[in-house]
Each structure stands twice: as C-alpha cells, then as structure tokens.
C-alpha cells in the first residue's frame, strides 16, 4: 500500500520534511564525527609511516595523545645500534626526535626536532619547495647559551622552522615569516611537500634549547633496520629493543593501531555522542510516527473494515517510517560530504574521512532504526478497536 504511505507523507509536507531533516542531521553528525576522528588519526598515522624507518621507540609513559611524558636519552641509541638478530648487523640508524609544541595556523602543532642530517629519512622523495633545510648547533647546551644572550652579534637568535605545504597554505605562512616559540623568536625558513611525518620541523638542539633543556633528550626514536629483515625479524627486533632499553617499541606499520588504542577514550566518546544523536533521532521518528498513527486511526479503521489484515497495517506504518529514514539517510550523506568540504576548506588541517562501509552502515542504521521506531506506533494502531473508532470519531 505504498500509495497510502506516500499520500500520508505528502499530506503533511512540513512534518515529513522535518522528520527527514532530523534523520539527515543525525546521520550527518554520525558520519562527520566518526570521519573526523578516524580521518585525523589516520592522517597522522600515514604521515608517521612516511618515515623511512621500521620501528618507533618511545618511553612507556610517553603519551601519544598529548605527545608528552617520559623521555629517551640520545645515549640509548648506542645500545640499540648494537642489537643483533642472528649474525647480521641489524640496525642501520637510529633517528632521535625531540618534540615541542607551538601554535601555528590556529591549532596546536607538534614540532619535530631532528638532526638536519636525519631529515632525508623524513623527507623521502619529497622536495623542499621553498627556502632551505635548517642547520643546527652541535649541542643543546651551546644552543641554550646562544639563545640566552641575544645581544651577542654571533647569535642565531631565532629558531628556524620547516613547515609542510598544507600548514603553509592553511596558516598562510611563507618563507621569511616570523613567529614565536614560547619566548624564542622563530622564523619559517623552508616549506616541504605535504606528507612528511611532522607538519613542523626544527633543528633538534635548538628546539631543546628553546624548551630550556640542555641535555640530549628525545621523545621518539625512529629505528631504520637493515633492508634484509622480514616482518617476523622486525617484530623480534622490537622485542629486543624493549628488553634491552625497557622502552616500548612498535612497528611503524602498526602505528595506526597503537594510535587508536591510545585514543580509545576519544573513540568511545565519539561513539557515545553518535549513539545519543541516533537515539534522539529515532525518538523523534517514533513520536512522529506516533502522531501520524493517532491522527490516522480513523483511516486505519477504514482500511480494516475493507479487510486489511493486521500485518498490512503494520507494513504500511513501517513503509512510511522507511521512506522518511531512507530519504533522511540520503540527504544526510549528501550533507556529510558538504560538511567534509566545509571543514576541510575552513580548517584545512583537519581530515574528514568517508569510507564506503561507514556510509552503508549509516544507511543500515537508518533503515533498522526506522523500522524499529515504527513498530511501537504500528502496534498501538492495531490495538485500537476499529468499530469504536468508526462510530465515535
């Protein structure tokens, strides 16, 4: 009885449109929230995987969320370099990264402090588009001394920064622009193609100094193993590093998972908000269907007098809810792509990911929710005595 469902829906256009909009908005909320959290984490993990190294080492108390916590010491590099799997020399290079934090482009950014000679491991085949790669000072202590005497004419009294193209575009920063890192002056000295692990790089010793640290500490080690190691051996190497240094070591390839585990709270929060949005949405449909059914009790009684079975009336109620939900899902998906475009245009450092199976899942949730929220009103419609409705209404 599609004709009846359709005529009911078109009879009250405003209400129908509002219901469709409610479904669309909650589907959009769901897709954008999930897409944003996964997209952003995924983008970070992809950037990490662009580093030409297989293993990432960090202190057990280092928090990937805030990028802060326990530190590593550069002298541990020696220990790792000596590790062997079988007889081959195993570790080719250990690349320390000191992380700093600064505000650029309206968002808090992690600054990757690296040795200039290590930068090629981060850049891979990505080119420096403008400016040049920074140089460093031999030790953080020297750098600190220089930063602290700004009147000395020999001083390099600013922190050179290399940023990626995406940040450069988003924050409209070009080579030569100055900014600050805490109390320290900073200047953009180069722009690199997007896709490198960090959005902002600085020379490691100067970054340490800018943070007031004179010791050779680091937050992450990227370990470049010999080319001939397979995944099992790499995993074995991870374990070796963990036992030797008592730090935690993960394969860079697994970094996405590690990140997701670390952001579990975020994922739970996003899931919770989405579920609440959906529940409210389906309550809305339930109320809408309920009023539709109440308003139509006479019509339902007429249909029963014409010999419609209970199942037919139930099916018709479900059909109406389904039409609302499916239209809502379609519009919601279109709106999500709109929201993705808006977010990525006006907040270019955020990434909203859309996966086909999320879209399908959203439609499935819409359809199942629609059917469920029609069941209660449908059942109530059937409980009314048609004779009574026909005689007294």
């Amino acid at each position, binding site marked *: 009885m599609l004709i009846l469902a359709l005529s009911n829906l078109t009879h009250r256009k405003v209400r129908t449109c509002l219901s469709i909009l409610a479904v669309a908005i909650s589907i959009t909320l769901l897709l954008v929230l999930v897409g944003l959290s996964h997209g952003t984490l995924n983008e970070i993990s992809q950037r990490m995987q662009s580093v030409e190294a297989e293993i990432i080492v960090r202190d057990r108390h280092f928090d990937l969320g805030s990028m802060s916590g326990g530190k590593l010491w550069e002298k541990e590099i020696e220990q790792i370099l000596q590790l062997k799997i079988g007889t081959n020399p195993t570790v080719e290079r250990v690349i320390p990264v000191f992380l700093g934090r600064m505000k650029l482009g309206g968002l808090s950014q992690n600054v990757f402090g690296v040795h200039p000679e290590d930068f090629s491991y981060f850049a891979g085949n990505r080119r420096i588009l403008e400016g040049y790669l920074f140089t460093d000072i031999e030790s953080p202590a020297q750098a600190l001394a220089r930063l602290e005497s700004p009147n000395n004419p020999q001083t390099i009294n600013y922190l050179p920064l290399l940023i990626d193209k995406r940040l450069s575009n988003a924050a409209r920063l070009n080579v030569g622009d100055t900014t600050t890192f805490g109390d320290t002056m900073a200047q953009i000295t180069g722009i690199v193609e997007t896709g490198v692990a960090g959005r902002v790089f600085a020379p490691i010793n100067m970054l340490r100094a800018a943070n007031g640290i004179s010791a050779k500490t680091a937050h992450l080690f990227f370990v470049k193993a010999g080319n001939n190691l397979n995944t099992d051996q790499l995993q074995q190497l991870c374990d070796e590093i963990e036992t030797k240094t008592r730090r935690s070591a993960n394969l860079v390839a697994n970094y996405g998972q590690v990140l997701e585990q670390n952001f579990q709270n975020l994922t739970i929060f996003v899931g919770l908000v989405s579920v609440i949005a959906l529940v409210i949405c389906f309550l809305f449909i339930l109320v809408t269907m309920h009023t539709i059914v109440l308003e139509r009790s006479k019509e339902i009684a007429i249909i029963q007098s014409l*010999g419609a*079975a209970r199942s037919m009336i139930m099916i018709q109620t479900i059909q109406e809810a389904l039409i609302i939900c499916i239209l809502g899902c379609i519009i919601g998906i279109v709106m999500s792509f709109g929201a993705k475009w808006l977010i990525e245009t006006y907040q270019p450092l955020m990434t909203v990911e859309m996966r086909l199976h999320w879209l399908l899942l959203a439609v499935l949730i819409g359809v199942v929710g629609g059917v469920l929220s029609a069941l209660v009103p449908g059942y109530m419609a059937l409980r009314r005595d048609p004779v009574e409705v026909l005689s007294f209404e």
Partner: protein
Amino acid sequence: MEDVLLKTEKLCKTFRQGRLETPVLFDIDMKIKRGEFVAIMGSSGCGKSTLMHILGLMLKSSSGRVIIDGLDTSALDDNRRARLRRDKIGFVFQRFNLLPTLNAYQNIAVAERIRGHCIDGQIWRALEAVQMTDKKQYKPGQLSIGQQQRIAIARAISHQPEIIMADEPTGNLDSSNSERILNLFSQIHRQQGITIVMITHSLTAAQWADRIIQIKDGRIVDH
C-alpha cells in the same frame, strides 16, 4: 433447499468495560438468503449497528455463532476474519468513511489493492454503476455528500462481494439524494444479485427492501 448466505444462532453481545457490563444483543437467530435485500429497523440504541458489525466480522460476539456461506466464523482468528471480510463483504457507512487524502479513483483502488488485485476495469465498472466516472479525480472534500456516498458504494461493490452491509446509508442525505442511493442499492441488488443488509430507521427507506427485520431492545421482534 433454500440458499442461506448468512445465519446467526443464539447470538449474544455484551460490552464489557472493566466491571461495567452493557448487554446489547440477546439470542439473535436470523437467516438471510443469498440475493435477498433485507432492511433492519429499530429504535436508536437497540443494537442495530452492533449486530451489523458482528455480521460483518468487525466485532466478536460474546456467545452464539455467525455462519457465512456455510462457514462458522466464531472459531476463526483475526486474520481469517479479515480475509473473509475482504472477500465477501462490502461496507457502506452513514458517514461514508472515505480516505480524505486520496481521490475517488484511488479510494476504490486502495480497497482493491487490499483485496490483492487492482483491476482498472473493475474500478471503472464500479464508478459507472454509481455514475461517477467524471469525478474520479476529485478528493472527498471536493464532492457533495451524495456523491461521496456513491463513491463509498462503488468502493463496496467493486470486488463484487457476496453481501453489502450498509449502516444508515441515507442517514446523512436529503430525500432526493436518499432516493438516488436507494435506487442504486436496488439496482445493484437486481442486476448483480448482491445480497444487501441495510440498517435504517426510515420506513420509506426500508420499503425498498424485500424484507424488514425489526429489533427491539436487542431482540428480533418480527420477521
């Protein structure tokens, strides 16, 4: 042997609402032959509509039996009753009960679709029988009340039911419209051989019928 289409045996109905009991029908025994046009008369509140709802399987009796075309309906479940109602019975109500959001044609089409077949020709024939083919695109609100009742009749006859049950079909109509509707019933009855059970409290209307059943205080007094 006489061909009985509809038969009741010791039919009783008592409405119950919590502890309140309203006995309405008592030991109704009646037979309606196939092809008969019967009028049911009685004063207001005597139980005519209740009886018709039970005969039309919209309501269950408290005790006794309703036998339609040889089939005892008291044992049937709701779905079987709905199917029987769909296939054999057509209702016409005092207040027409058309679906307001659909036009005349669609109102009949919906009934046909509930019955599982929507044959354009049948709908046309029904509209022709009530002389409403030119108004098929009109919604109930755009039709006069006499025209609405004709559409309701077309809806009741489009599937060629065995029996039409009409509850005060002329109750809302003026005398000329009433006459037209009654004429229509009589025509349907004669030409298509459909059995008609019509409730009325107008003696003029009842005189169109072959036979009058009188009900008083829930009992049949004369037939």
